[in-house]
């Protein structure tokens, strides 16, 4: 269903036609070019960089809202989690939005709606494992035609005419390719098979690449599930060109790493994060997630390639060129969550085409993207072993020697809250019944007498999640937001109804009716509330910063600066136990994407927080990209929920960011300097 608004069509078509020639050949790893933002990550290497310089530290705080677009009525109800990064090509801004993941085309100068396309997928949409508006879409042109491509919640790839929003008749069947068909030769229920995708497709070399996402993997119904795979389709016809199997079958490289024939039934191992492409090298970079079950690997013994691996494939054929497994036999939910960032750098005088992978575990893995060789050695080191029945742990895990981890990992006494000696003492008391340790300390079977769980940062509660980072191709500095937050890694027997081949689910003895037979647990206390079992009087059990932006020089491997990102939450600032203390800016945790421009790093604060006016909302902040010094902030009525992008139109630089959360439904907001 497409509705075209006649008033805007003619004018924007004219602008589009004028600019069309300029949009061909726009991809690369040097940031967004020509003032546009033609792909999710700014370019196919996900640098999230634009060399625009109108908005600077001198004027950032004077930015004003130029237009807003509210997404409430694009679906049957408002959406509160708008994660899109819009695209801007030829004066039009494109985005997914709304609960049905509609596609909208707006006038990029005014926000006026030009067309909207939506698919009502009925039961198929309702049963989708990855619902809502998704992360955005892809744009393609050959200089004549222009297309928008996106994946619906029900897992169908749709090609639209970018001018009109109408499905492209010659693509698939009436503009649609059913992605549940021909997924690595699996027979799937087209309505209920639990596979979908919320990341965007990516177009490179006239192919559109699509991954797969599933229900979250803490509580699988069975050890068996749909297998993820990555596929490439002809962008003109929608015809399947190649499939890369993330779970190799007998006779294929890596199959032997699935012990006890676990390859035969295991599923997941999809690519739910953004894929990156180097058209010049003719390669695509696939960030792969875990196999079935994020925390217990008893049913999938072995290293299970290509789980948790960065895999480089030939763009034209899908044939593997190299891979590197970041985690062996993972039990920490360390899916690779975000785009590999392609970066051309010079290390010790040697030019290198590199790929840098931020991660949930707070390591930045940097490779030569041609060969897969680490830029700095990545060492296999012994790691703590666990005692969960049926589990077979990897004795070692890969540790990058450089850069050092950009976020805290695991949990140590020194990480605990230390605003006052009393709070530290309470934290020490609290962790007595938990296991703590360095990175890769495995989960435990939860016991009331202890250990209740393993407590760890940078695992399930990740350092970096799906928004990933940014890279400045001029200064060769990479920017990435990270969160410090503690996850409870415990295992409990699954509830009735789970398949007998599932031995554990994630949880603790302190939670869940299925474990305790009723309400009531050790999670309450009198004042402040022990609000998730591991807080101290309502304060995070760890000391700040709770979230920060990290700048890492990719040529030296050194961290250049780190700043706490986000003003101290009122619930910390005003805590009765902290009266009289001066609390520095703590930063806040959350999934936050960054944007780099000629002089600034720009990102919204996570969640709601104190604002200068006192109004409920969150600040969009800028930092001097060389030093991390504050470079201004502007008010937003809700926190950033997508990642910011920028473009120039008619001589004016715009910043657009998707905001939503809490009581505030999804909205795109465009900022620019006053006229």
């Amino acid at each position, binding site marked *: 269903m497409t509705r075209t608004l006649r008033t805007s069509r003619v004018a924007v078509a004219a602008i589009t036609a004028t600019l069309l020639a300029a949009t061909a050949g726009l991809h690369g790893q040097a940031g967004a070019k020509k003032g546009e933002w033609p792909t999710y990550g700014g370019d196919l290497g996900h640098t999230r960089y634009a060399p625009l310089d109108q908005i600077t530290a001198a004027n950032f705080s004077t930015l004003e809202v130029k237009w807003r677009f509210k997404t409430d009525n694009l679906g049957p*109800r*408002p959406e*509160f989690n708008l994660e899109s990064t819009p695209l801007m090509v030829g004066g039009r801004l494109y985005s997914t939005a709304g609960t049905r993941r509609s596609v909208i085309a707006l006038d990029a100068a005014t926000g006026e709606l030009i067309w909207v396309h939506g698919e009502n997928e009925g039961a198929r949409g309702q*049963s*989708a*494992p*990855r*619902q*809502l508006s998704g992360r955005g879409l892809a744009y393609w042109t050959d200089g004549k035609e222009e297309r928008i491509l996106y994946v619906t919640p029900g897992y169908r790839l749709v090609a639209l005419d970018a001018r009109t929003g109408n499905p492209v008749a010659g693509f698939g069947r009436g503009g649609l390719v059913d992605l549940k068909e021909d997924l690595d030769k699996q027979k799937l229920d087209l309505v209920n098979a639990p596979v979908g995708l919320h990341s965007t497709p990516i177009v490179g070399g006239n192919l559109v690449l699509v991954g797969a996402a599933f*229900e*979250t993997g*803490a*509580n699988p119904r069975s050890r068996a599930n749909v297998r993820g795979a990555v596929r490439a389709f002809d962008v003109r016809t929608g015809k399947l060109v190649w499939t890369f199997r993330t779970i190799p079958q007998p006779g294929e490289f890596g199959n032997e790493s699935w012990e006890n024939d676990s390859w035969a039934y295991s599923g997941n191992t999809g690519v739910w994060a953004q894929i990156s492409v180097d058209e010049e090298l003719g390669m695509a970079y696939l960030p792969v997630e875990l196999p079935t079950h994020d925390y217990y690997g008893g049913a999938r013994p072995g290293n299970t390639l290509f789980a948790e691996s960065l895999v480089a494939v030939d763009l034209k054929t899908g044939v593997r060129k190299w891979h590197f497994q970041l985690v062996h036999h993972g039990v920490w*939910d360390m899916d690779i969550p975000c785009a590999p960032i392609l970066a051309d750098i010079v290390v010790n005088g040697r030019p290198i085409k590199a790929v840098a992978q931020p991660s949930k575990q707070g390591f930045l893995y940097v490779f030569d993207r041609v060969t897969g060789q680490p830029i700095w050695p990545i060492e296999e080191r012994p790691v703590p072993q666990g005692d969960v029945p049926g589990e077979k742990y990897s004795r070692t895990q890969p540790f990058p020697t450089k850069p050092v981890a950009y976020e805290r990992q695991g949990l140590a006494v020194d990480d605990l809250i230390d605003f006052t000696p009393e709070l530290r003492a309470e934290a020490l008391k609290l962790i007595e019944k938990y296991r703590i340790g360095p990175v890769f300390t495995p989960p435990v079977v939860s016991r009331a007498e202890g250990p209740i769980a393993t407590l760890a940062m940078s695992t*399930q*509660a990740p350092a970096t*999640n799906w928004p990933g980072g940014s890279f400045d191709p001029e200064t060769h500095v990479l920017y990435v937001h990270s969160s410090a*937050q503690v*996850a*409870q890694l415990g295992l409990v027997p699954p*509830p009735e109804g789970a398949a007998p081949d599932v031995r554990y*689910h*994630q*949880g*603790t003895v*302190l*939670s*869940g*009716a*299925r*474990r305790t037979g009723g*309400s*009531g647990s050790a*999670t*309450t*206390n009198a*004042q*402040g*509330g*022990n*609000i*998730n079992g591991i*807080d101290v009087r*309502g*304060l*995070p059990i760890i000391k700040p910063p709770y979230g920060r932006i990290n700048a890492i020089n990719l040529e030296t491997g050194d961290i250049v600066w780190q700043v706490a990102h986000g003003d101290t*939450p*009122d*619930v910390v600032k*005003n805590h*009765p136990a902290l009266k009289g203390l001066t609390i520095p800016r703590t930063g*806040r*945790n*959350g999934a936050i994407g960054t944007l780099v421009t000629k002089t600034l790093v720009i990102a919204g604060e996570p*969640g*709601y927080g104190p604002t200068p006016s006192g109004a*409920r909302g969150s600040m969009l902040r800028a930092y001097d990209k060389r030093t991390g010094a504050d470079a201004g902030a502007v008010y937003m009525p809700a926190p950033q929920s997508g990642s910011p992008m920028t473009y120039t139109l008619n001589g004016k630089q715009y910043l657009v960011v998707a905001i939503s*959360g*809490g*009581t505030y439904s999804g909205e795109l907001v465009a900022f620019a300097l006053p006229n």
Partner: protein
Amino acid sequence: MDRRVFASVCLLLAGLGLAAQSSRTVWDGIYSEEQAARGEKLYADRCGKCHGDTLGGQEAAPALTGTTFYANWEGEALEALFDRMRSTMPQDKPGSLSRAQNADILAHMLHTGGFPAGPMPLDGQAGALSTITIRLYKP
């Protein structure tokens, strides 16, 4: 009674009533233990798959307890949180839970958050929660 005096007394009483109502927070024993137990079962069936058994959140859905969650809702009326649940959750079948069921689940969330129970269950009727404020710390 003089009509003007009567009107003034009424206004005063109404004012006092409003003041009493608007000063209620989640610390005032606004749900019952029994209700939270019902809510815990409902939560496990309808919510835990995405938000996690411990309410700690998972990859696809945020935590429903903890400092970050309560910082986001601090100072809001409980009605706003209730309405958000009622209109958008569970994600695979929004609006499929009754007001009473949503109230039970909210009671479980408050119980997990460490807020005390009281003698009466939380009332899920429209408007009933608009005078209760979310405060992480006891006023």
